[in-house]
């Protein structure tokens, strides 16, 4: 029994009015003047009390009449749930969504969720059909639209929580697609989850088809067991005795209401525990544990921070990969002398990455130099045709080339590599000196100067520059105030060429003496070398793109933490989804250049703060969780059936009116007597 207008029950408070009137009647201030109270005085006052008992019947009749009328206005509705489904019209399509995120591993949550799902499966009739979907950040259909309960149960029992985070929207979309294809009259979704707040980001476009009933089954209990989560690690590198060392600091948080004491945290490097520290965290607080430094002895060194066991095991370990930092090899080509002073000084500064600079004259650059170098910098030199062609091949194979054009710079016409042809010098030493403007701040080189007071190029005096004429496919990144390109870039094959229209010393400009010089050089070199800082770890659900690794092309294979081998073809852009917690390995065919990726669970999933399941029900079905009337029925009701379900109000109203009439008769009769 439900009510279409339950707000009318507020009027039940009005039932007190007859009673109050009855009680306050004697308090009337209007005084009756009477000749003498001689006789009245003789009547015992207690008789007043007997009157209440005398009129009880009248009062009850009035109250009952009012109550019936109020109930009638509240529009009682006999819900379909109270009625047996009509024969032949009750076949159901049930989609059971089971939360398989790693937070379900907390305590006995997973066992309870499986038990609840099994109950739902057992309720299926022979004519019903069921589907089982286990979801985390994505949804997997274990078994789709079958009436075989044994298979559904078996598929459910075989599944386990995954290391992924909870996302309700993909699961609801999958359920919606299954139900949309169903022809059965009653369609239902059962959502079994621990309903973490983090799993729902409001309306994510997950709407179930019209007429679908959604039943949330919350697997929640108070966090009676403590749980600590490793939220991340920070790695600080240092050099000691020409050996690179790392200090690992792990952050932990205890989101439960119980303190954690007596726990331990262990740092494993290369699969061996090297340090263990005690851990105590107060409820609702965080802590950090710093381990002693260790030497980064090899490339792709695997590290894990591991907590002792608690209520939720999946968030107790945190993996990372660390390798010795490798310098970027650069070759600076100059004419000798002091012209490279500012450039070499600028490149000698830098930790991430370090720059390993080799200085050569144009004739002395060997193929080995080019093979080793990530970037070649031509600092105002004359380039012959042979050298230009070698550079062209070098760039096409992925190398980076930086060209600074002073008074000596030349480039053979035969080789089309530079982004601009080098024109005659422009002398700006008389009158106004030249300035740099019109910077392309969206470009990686100039991106750091985008913010205000992050470096002012317009204040750099330039007294001379070469008149550059850009190539068709070149991009101008900066111009001088006269409109002449100052910095031009061109992509050639797998590499890039960046050209600077002036010198890298103080003969033609004061640029090397200005603060913007050092970041400009570093950014340009990192951009040309296509340098990216190595990521110590990634999160479950991200993908591994083999093309972005340094593993050589050819037959490659990915080893998952579970030991599976996933071969990757050279053709196409095949990517691997990182779905397990642990270390993934990408190997070439000769086991060379192995890339290791550490994968961790999303620490936000360990936050078990629950949400109200009605919020999801409301968003998915378009009605509040309480109003089953709007979603309970998959079979459209006929107008007669709707009217029949709501007809009760009419009887209540008639009953109320009859009682009022009886009240009138009764009170008249009492009045006469």
């Amino acid at each position, binding site marked *: 029994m439900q009510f279409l207008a339950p707000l009318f029950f507020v009027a039940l408070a009005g039932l007190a009015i007859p009673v109050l009137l009855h009680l306050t009647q004697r308090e*009337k201030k209007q005084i009756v003047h009477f000749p003498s109270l001689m006789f009245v005085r003789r009547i015992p006052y207690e*008789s*007043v009390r007997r009157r209440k008992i005398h009129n009880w019947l009248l009062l009850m009749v009035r109250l009952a009449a009012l109550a019936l009328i109020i109930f009638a206005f509240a529009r009682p509705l006999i819900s379909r749930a109270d009625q047996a489904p009509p024969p032949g019209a009750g076949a159901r399509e049930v989609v059971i969504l089971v939360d398989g995120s790693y937070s379900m591993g907390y305590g006995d949550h997973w066992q309870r969720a499986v038990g609840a799902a099994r109950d739902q499966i057992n309720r299926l009739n022979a004519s019903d059909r069921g589907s089982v979907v286990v979801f985390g950040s994505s949804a997997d259909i274990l078994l789709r639209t079958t009436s075989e309960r044994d298979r559904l149960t078996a598929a459910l029992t075989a599944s386990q929580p995954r290391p992924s985070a909870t996302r309700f929207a993909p699961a609801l979309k999958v359920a919606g697609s299954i139900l949309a294809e169903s022809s059965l009259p009653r369609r239902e979704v059962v959502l079994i989850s621990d309903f973490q707040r983090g799993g729902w980001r409001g309306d994510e476009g997950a709407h179930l088809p019209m007429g679908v009933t959604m039943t949330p089954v919350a697997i929640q209990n108070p966090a009676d067991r403590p749980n600590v989560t490793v939220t991340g690690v920070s790695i600080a590198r240092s050099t000691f005795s020409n050996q690179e060392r790392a200090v690992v600091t792990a952050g932990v948080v205890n989101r439960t209401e119980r303190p954690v004491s007596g726990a331990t945290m262990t740092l494993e490097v290369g699969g061996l525990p090297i340090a263990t520290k005690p851990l105590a965290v107060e409820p609702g607080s965080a802590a950090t544990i710093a381990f002693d430094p260790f030497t980064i002895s090899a490339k792709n060194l695997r590290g894990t921070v591991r907590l002792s066991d608690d209520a939720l095991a999946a968030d107790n370990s945190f993996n990372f990969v660390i390798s010795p930092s490798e310098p970027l090899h650069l070759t600076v080509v100059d004419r000798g002398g002091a012209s490279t002073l500012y450039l070499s000084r600028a490149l000698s500064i830098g930790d991430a990455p370090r720059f390993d600079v080799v200085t050569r004259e144009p004739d002395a650059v060997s193929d080995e130099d080019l093979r080793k170098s990530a970037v070649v910098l031509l600092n105002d030199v004359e380039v012959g045709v042979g050298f230009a062609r070698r550079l062209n091949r070098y760039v096409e194979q992925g190398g980076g080339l930086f060209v600074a054009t002073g008074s000596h710079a030349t480039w053979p016409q035969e080789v089309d590599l530079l982004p601009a042809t080098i024109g005659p010098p422009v002398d700006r030493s008389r009158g106004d000196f030249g300035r740099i403007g019109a910077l392309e701040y969206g470009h990686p080189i100039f991106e750091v100067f985008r913010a205000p007071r992050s470096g002012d190029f317009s204040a750099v005096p330039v007294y001379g520059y070469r008149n550059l004429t850009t190539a068709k496919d070149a991009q101008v990144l900066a111009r001088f105030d006269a409109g002449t390109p100052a910095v031009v870039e061109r992509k050639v094959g797998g590499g890039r060429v960046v050209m600077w229209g002036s010198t890298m010393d103080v003969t033609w400009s004061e640029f090397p003496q200005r603060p913007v010089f050092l970041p400009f050089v570093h950014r340009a070199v990192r951009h040309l070398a296509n340098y990216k800082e190595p990521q110590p770890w990634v999160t479950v659900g991200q993908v591994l793109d083999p093309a972005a690794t340094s593993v050589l092309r050819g037959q490659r294979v990915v080893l998952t933490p579970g030991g599976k081998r996933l071969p990757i073809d050279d053709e196409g852009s095949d990517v691997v989804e990182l779905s397990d917690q642990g270390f993934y390995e990408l190997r070439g065919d000769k086991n060379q250049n192995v890339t290791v990726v550490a994968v961790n669970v999303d620490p936000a999933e360990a936050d078990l703060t629950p949400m109200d399941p009605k919020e999801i029900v409301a968003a998915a079905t378009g009605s509040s969780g309480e109003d089953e009337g709007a979603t309970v029925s998959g079979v459209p009701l006929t107008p007669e059936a709707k009217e029949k379900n709501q007809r009760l109000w009419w009887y209540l109203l008639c009953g109320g009116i009859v009682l009022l009439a009886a009240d009138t008769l009764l009170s008249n009769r009492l009045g006469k007597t």
Partner: protein
Amino acid sequence: MAVETHAIPGARFMDPAVLARIGNLELVARAVVDGFINGLHKAPYFGASVDFAEHRGYVPGDDIRRMDWKLWARTDRYYIKEYEAESNMNFSVLLDASKSMDYGTRGITKFDYARILTACLTNLVHHQRDRVGFVAFDSDVIEHVPPSAKHMETVLHVLDRLKPGRPGNLKAPLHRLAEHFGRRGVLVVISDFYEEPEAVLDALSPLRFRGNDLIVFHVLDKSEIEFGFDDAQPFEDLESGEQMPVVPEAFREEYRSLVKAHVDALTQSFSAVRVDYSMLDTSMPLDHALFRYLNSRARTMKIR
């Protein structure tokens, strides 16, 4: 008996509340009484003559002018014709003007009803050439018009300006007045008698000591008899100002029985001492009271 015609022949049957709206007491009294006297001729229970008394045999010394010659012609005996003595009777109305009389729910207060009744009685008696007097009292005597054949106008004037205002008490004023009525007469007491029957009787008894005929009219409003109130309200005593909460529905039965017992007790007490007692409610037409008076007078004559 002189009979006058009047423009309002049915006035005696009129609702007293209507009569009360006529401000002039004399007009009201004349209208009521004249109509009443007209109707008397048709009343079957009233004697043909009040003048002739009896015949008696002639004894020497009797005035031969009173000899009934017609009877001598028939019987050849001398009979003297005897008439009722021409007694100019003293008639006084003793009106209770206490505050409790100033109450009415039907457009007329008990006091107004009593005033009209007084005026009518006075007028009726004045027609008979009797001497009329008037006394108003509450806890004391507040107006006193001695009986006189010429006091009709005075009585009406006093009645006209009389207003009830103070709490009443029967005993003190009536005991004082009893000493003043030295000559035999008729005394009419009009009151609501809100005292115990014994106290009422005790207060009125001295009025009879000098041979006065005592007629008592007990005037009550309908609501004092029926107690037809609906709402539970505080009631205030008009005289004492005392208040008490009253639930009429609960009180009604008991109240009615108490009033009835009071009236019964008064009836019994007065009849025991041969005082003519009538209970009037203000909705009754005035002729009822006038009949009661005349009946009482006729009965007294017969007894005598």
